[in-house]
């Protein structure tokens, strides 16, 4: 079940992504309205990370495209923020919590310019929002997983974006941190911003998300959570019925067949 909207903030059109000829996303096609908190769910290796990377132009799609606010990413980049999976960076980097959060202001500064008072205040504000005031000067190598996650969230906040893509912001955080993070996200959507989150915990989907996107290499469902988050569709997303697809993908890779005729 795929529910489309008019005037979408996010439009993913016929998106196919392959890694070394192996398709990991097939014909993904959905739209998202603005001002919502949307969850992307699906099993490990389903292509969730790939999907938001494609939206951020970090992987090149085989076919299809993503439009944000009706435009290409290039035109609206300053309004879009991306929070990578926490594990993708080396936290032993010589920087403090504040240093990393301040990095969120760098893109808007452009070449040769450095943060001044305004940017610094923005960073301090974000620090407060994620409740890390006491950790301002802490070395990032000495943070817990939940604290690292909040540092990333705070860095995104300083970007002043209208649309956020976050890869597993709730991974490895405790209940208290989860509450802090969800509060921040809900505050964002209450100001009309759109937040798209890769999520793993099925228990909290109905509670957190206005909109749910289910993928397993291909799109299973996209729509208001109340309509699409049903046992049948969850079963379809996580169940074994899609093994065939994985097998075909594997075949394409080993046989070096093109994923589609062109």
């Amino acid at each position, binding site marked *: 079940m795929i529910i489309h909207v008019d005037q979408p903030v996010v439009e993913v059109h016929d998106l196919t992504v392959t890694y070394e000829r192996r398709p990991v996303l097939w014909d993904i096609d959905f739209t998202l309205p603005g001002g919502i908190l949307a969850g992307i769910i699906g099993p490990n290796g389903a292509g969730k990370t790939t999907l938001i990377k494609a939206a951020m132009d*970090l992987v090149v799609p085989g076919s299809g495209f993503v439009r944000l606010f009706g435009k290409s990413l290039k035109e609206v980049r300053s309004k879009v*923020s*991306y929070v990578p999976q926490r594990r993708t960076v080396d936290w032993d980097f*010589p920087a403090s919590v504040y240093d990393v959060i301040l990095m969120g202001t760098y893109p808007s500064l452009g*070449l040769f310019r450095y943060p001044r008072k305004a940017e610094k205040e923005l960073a301090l504000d974000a620090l407060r929002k994620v409740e890390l005031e006491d950790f301002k000067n802490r070395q990032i190598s000495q943070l817990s997983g939940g604290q690292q996650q909040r540092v990333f969230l705070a860095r995104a906040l300083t970007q002043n974006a209208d649309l956020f893509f976050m890869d597993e912001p709730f991974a490895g955080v405790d209940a208290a941190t989860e509450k802090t993070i969800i509060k921040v996200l809900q505050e964002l959507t209450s100001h009309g911003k759109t937040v798209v989150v890769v999520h793993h915990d099925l228990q909290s989907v109905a509670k957190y998300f206005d909109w749910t996107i289910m993928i397993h290499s291909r799109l299973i469902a996209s729509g208001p959570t109340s309509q699409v988050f049903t046992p049948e569709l969850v079963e379809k997303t996580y169940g074994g019925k899609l093994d065939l697809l994985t097998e075909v993908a594997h075949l394409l890779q080993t046989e070096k067949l093109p994923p589609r005729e062109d």
Partner: protein
Amino acid sequence: MIAERLAEFLSFSDPILLSVTLGVVLLSSTSAIVGTFTFLRKQALVGDAVAHSVLPGICLAFIIGESKNPIYLIIGAFITGWLSINLIHKITKTTRLKEDTAIALVLSVFFGVGIVLLTYIQHSGIPGHSGLDHILFGQAAAITRSDVHVFGMVSILLITSVLLFYKELKTTAFDSDFARSAGMKVSFADLMLTTLTVLAVVTGIQAVGVVLVAAMLITPPAAARYWTHDLPLMIILSAIFGAVSGFMGTLASYVLPNMPTGPWIIVTITGIAFFSFIFAPGKGVLFRLYHQFKVRRRMLTENVLKDMYMAGEKRGNHNNAFTLPEIAAHRRMHKEKLQSGLNKLYLDRFLKKDENGWHFTISGLNKARRLVKIHRLWETYLTRYVGIAPDHVHDDAEAIEHYITPELEKKLTDELDRPEKDPHESEIPYD
């Protein structure tokens, strides 16, 4: 003799010596600055590949230009060095080969070609070819004043570039996906770093040669990383370490007979790195060992005090002497360990001893009571709020209680509403 040479060196009366020293110090500190980013991007091996790949460029430049003019050689070196990095990236991106394989491949091919060319030059009789083989191990003594001018210019170029693109270099090094997604000039920063690395290598070769130049790039930041968690400070320290090793290298080669500069630079910087590895506070081996030792000893003495207090509870008074078996009854502990704990407590005047055994001093008794109190409060907390069974809490409590501060202790007491007894029905001693 050596002392004489040393005095001579340090007076810097010889203008040639002065330019050599200046040149080498300049070189080694700027490569250390650029190297900081190479190091943080985990591109140490790439640095080495570049270093080896400049050899064919230098040889070709010499063959074509028939001169050892440093500008020619630098241009030649720059071209092949730059080519090699891009080739490595290209191979990693477009084939299934991993980066380390690509590095090994590029390094050996380029270096091999370089050696062939070098051999050709040596047998060709092109005038002025003698001395070109010094690019293998460097020859700082041959640095002339005009070389120093070139180095100076390159250094200024490198340092200004790092300053101007600091933001981009830093963000890309930490989280390149983020930087790219936010539209920062990542490809440009990459290109920048590549170019800077090649430039640093190319100039560094004069002093230490292609074989060792990568160490000039990577070892100073690796050493600096031990001393600080702050990037600007790390860059400064790295530059200082580089400068010091450059200076020591020239000094050693001047003062000691027949000593080469390049290898001495590398020996010095390696020495600094080794020293940092052992002695740096926080991250150094020694500091960590000492810290561990202190924690262990504190746990030991605190456990002994607790055991004595509980032994006192059992017999109903804390004032009489405690015998060794009485203290040891509480836990299995090596005799020597117990003895060393007791001795430490004696030295700290928490205990006294006479012919009957060990006694608490007043502060010893207070400390012991507080420790027992914390232990029991913590056990109560664990059973009541964390839901651990009473017969399991003991071990958990043992580990944490040594870290409980007076503030936490107060919080604990309030939160538990000052309980009388712990989960094992032992009385909690308040003062």
